[in-house]
C-alpha cells in the first residue's frame, strides 16, 4: 500500500495531488474537507482523525477520472477511501486548459464572442451575453441597445437555460442508472438546439449575441417554432416527474446525498442551483436584474435541504419557470432594429456594400481592426444555468481587451465537491458530481 502511495507521490503526481495521510497538515485538511467559515485548524485536525490500527493500512487513495464516464468531461478526483467511505477528495483540473483568457487578449471585441462561447459549451449564449454586456458597458452604450435585441437576448438566454437543464436531466439520469432518461433528455434538448440552429445557423458555439445587439433578426416562422417548443416540453416534464421525481429508487439515491449548508455554500462562493438548494433565495435575474428580467413574472426556485435531490428538483422546475418567461417574451417581443445603429460598432448592412465604397471600407475596417473601446475596467455578471457567470474586462483603449477574465460558475462550484462527498459512499460520489453539473470547458477555460 505504501508503495502505491509513494508511486503516486513520486511518479507523475507531485504537489498537485492528494497528499497521503502521513504528510497531512491540519491546514491542508481544512482545505480538503471543504473549509467552513470560522472552523479553527484544531477543529479541522480533529476531522482528520481516524481510528489507528497499526497492523494494517487504513485508507487507500484512488483516482477517479479523468477518463471516467460520470465526470462530465475530464475532471479527475483523487479520493481517499476507507472501505466504501470517502474520507477526503480533491478535484484535479486543468486537463482541458487551452488558455482561452490569453487567446481573448489577442482577439478583437468583434471576434471575442467566438472565443468565450466555447467556454461553457452547454450555455454558449449566456457566455456571449455576458461578454457583450461587459463590452457595451465599457463602450457606454449599455443603455442604448434596441428593445428588440434585448428581448431577443432574453429569449435565447432562457431557451439556452432550458436546453442546459434538459441536458442535466439526461446526464443526471444516466449517472444514476436511469438510462432511458438520458435518451429523453437529449431528445428534448435537441428540439431546442434545432431552434437555435434555425436562428443562429449553429447548434452550439453560436457567436450570435455580439456587442451592440445580435447578429441577425429572428427568421420567419420563429414564433411557431417557439410555441411548438413551449407546447411539447411541459408534457415531457410531467413524464420526467413520473419517471424520476416520485420514484423510490431515484429518491433514495439522491435524498440526503451531497448535503451542503447555507453557510458553507456562501463561504465557498457557490452560486446557482447549489446556493439555491440550501434555501438562499438568490437569482441575479431577480436580485440584480439585467436585460428586462424585472418586467417578467417568474419564481425563484429554492430548496430546503441542500442535497442532490433539491438540486435536481430546482433544475427541473427552473425549466418550467423558463417556459413561463419565454411565453411572456413572445407576448412582448417588439419590432425594430436588432442591433445598435452606431457606425463605430455596427458593420454596414450587406446591401450597402455593393453600392458604396465607403461602406465597403467601413465593413473591412470593422472586421479586420475591430472597434476601439475606451480605457477602463468593468465586471458584469449574469445568471447562467450553472450560477453566476461574470466577465471582467480591463481595456487599454485598443481594439482588443487588455485582460479578459471570465468568472466561471463551475470553476468555483467544483470546490464544493470535497465537502459534499466527505463521509459519503463512493457510489454516491457519482450522484454528487452530477448534481453540481460542472462543465469542464469553463472550469479549465
Amino acid at each position, binding site marked *: 500500500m505504501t508503495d502505491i502511495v509513494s508511486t503516486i507521490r513520486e*511518479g*507523475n503526481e*507531485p*504537489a*498537485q495531488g492528494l497528499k497521503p495521510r502521513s504528510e497531512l497538515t491540519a*491546514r*491542508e485538511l*481544512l*482545505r480538503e474537507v*471543504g*473549509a*467552513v*467559515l470560522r472552523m479553527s485548524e484544531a477543529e479541522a485536525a480533529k476531522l482528520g482523525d481516524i481510528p489507528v490500527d497499526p497492523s494494517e493500512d487504513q485508507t487507500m487513495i484512488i483516482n477517479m477520472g479523468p477518463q471516467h464516464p460520470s465526470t462530465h468531461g475530464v475532471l479527475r478526483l483523487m479520493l481517499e477511501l476507507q472501505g466504501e467511505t470517502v474520507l477526503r477528495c480533491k478535484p484535479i*483540473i*486543468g486537463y482541458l*486548459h487551452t*488558455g482561452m*483568457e*490569453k*487567446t481573448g487578449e*489577442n482577439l478583437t471585441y468583434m471576434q471575442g464572442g467566438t472565443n468565450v462561447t466555447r467556454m461553457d459549451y452547454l450555455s454558449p449564449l449566456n457566455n456571449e451575453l455576458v461578454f457583450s454586456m461587459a463590452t457595451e*458597458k*465599457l463602450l*457606454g452604450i449599455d443603455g442604448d441597445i434596441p428593445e428588440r435585441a434585448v428581448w431577443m437576448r432574453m429569449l435565447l438566454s432562457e431557451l439556452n437555460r432550458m436546453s442546459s437543464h434538459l441536458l442535466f436531466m439526461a446526464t443526471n439520469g444516466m449517472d444514476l442508472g436511469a438510462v432511458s432518461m438520458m435518451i429523453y433528455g437529449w431528445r428534448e434538448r435537441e428540439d431546442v438546439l434545432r431552434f437555435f440552429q434555425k436562428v443562429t445557423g449553429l447548434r452550439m458555439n453560436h457567436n450570435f449575441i455580439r456587442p451592440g445587439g445580435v447578429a441577425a433578426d429572428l427568421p420567419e416562422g420563429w414564433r411557431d417554432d417557439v410555441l411548438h417548443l413551449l407546447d411539447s416540453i411541459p408534457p415531457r416534464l410531467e413524464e420526467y416527474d413520473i419517471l424520476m421525481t416520485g420514484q423510490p429508487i431515484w429518491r433514495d439515491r439522491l435524498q440526503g446525498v451531497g448535503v451542503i449548508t447555507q453557510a458553507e455554500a*456562501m*463561504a*465557498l*462562493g*457557490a*452560486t446557482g442551483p447549489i446556493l439555491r438548494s440550501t434555501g*438562499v433565495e*438568490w437569482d441575479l435575474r431577480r*436580485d*440584480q436584474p439585467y436585460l428586462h428580467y424585472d418586467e417578467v413574472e417568474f419564481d425563484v426556485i429554492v430548496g430546503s435541504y441542500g442535497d442532490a435531490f433539491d438540486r435536481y428538483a430546482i433544475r427541473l422546475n427552473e425549466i418550467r419557470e423558463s417556459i413561463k418567461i419565454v411565453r411572456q417574451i413572445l407576448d412582448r417581443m417588439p419590432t425594430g432594429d436588432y442591433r445598435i445603429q452606431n457606425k463605430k460598432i455596427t458593420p454596414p448592412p450587406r446591401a450597402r456594400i455593393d453600392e458604396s465604397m465607403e461602406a465597403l471600407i467601413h465593413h473591412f475596417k470593422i472586421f479586420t481592426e475591430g472597434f476601439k473601446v475606451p*480605457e*477602463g*475596467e*468593468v*465586471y458584469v*455578471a449574469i445568471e447562467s444555468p450553472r450560477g*453566476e457567470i*461574470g466577465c*471582467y474586462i*480591463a481595456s*487599454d483603449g485598443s481594439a482588443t481587451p*487588455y*485582460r479578459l*477574465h471570465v*468568472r466561471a460558475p463551475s*470553476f*468555483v462550484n*467544483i*470546490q464544493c465537491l470535497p465537502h459534499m462527498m466527505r463521509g459519503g459512499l463512493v457510489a454516491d460520489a457519482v450522484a454528487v458530481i452530477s448534481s453540481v453539473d460542472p462543465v469542464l470547458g469553463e472550469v*479549465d*477555460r
Partner: protein
Amino acid sequence: MSLYGVPLSDSRGQRVLHPTREQYVATVKALLDDTFVMCIDLTAVDFLTHPGRELPEGIAAERFEVVVNLLSLERRERIRVRVQVPESDATLPTLFDMYPGSEAMEREVYDMFGIAFSNHPDLTRILMPEDWDGHPLRKDYDQGRIPVQFSADFPAREA
C-alpha cells in the same frame, strides 16, 4: 471619496476600493463584517505593457493588480477591491481564512501570474502541469511558445 480609510473610486458606476497591500486584509475583513459574505471572483491583471492607468491619488501603480469582487446578498450590492502588487515582491496575504472559496481562484492567479499568496493552504498550480515553466497570463509570456511535453526520449516510468 473613501471607505474604511481606503480610497474609493467609481468605474462605470461600479464601486472600487484601492487599499495598499498592508490595508488589504483589514479592508476585506471590514467588508466581510459589512454583509459582503461572498467572494465572487478573484483575479489579477498584469499591467506590464500598459503602466499608465487611472488610479486614485496616493496609490502608486505597480506591475500587477489583484482584483477581488465581493457580493452582499443582503444589500444586493457588489464592491470591487483592487490592490497593487509590485513585481519585485509578488506576494499577497491569502483570503482563505475569510473566504474559503477564494482557494481555487488564488491558486489560479498563482498559476497564471506567479503571484504568491502567503499562508495559502495549498499553493500549487491548478490549470497548468506542475512542472510548467513560466506564468502564461503574464504579458511577457509569448503566445504560441509551447515546448514539447511528451517526446520519444521521455524517461519511462519505473514500476
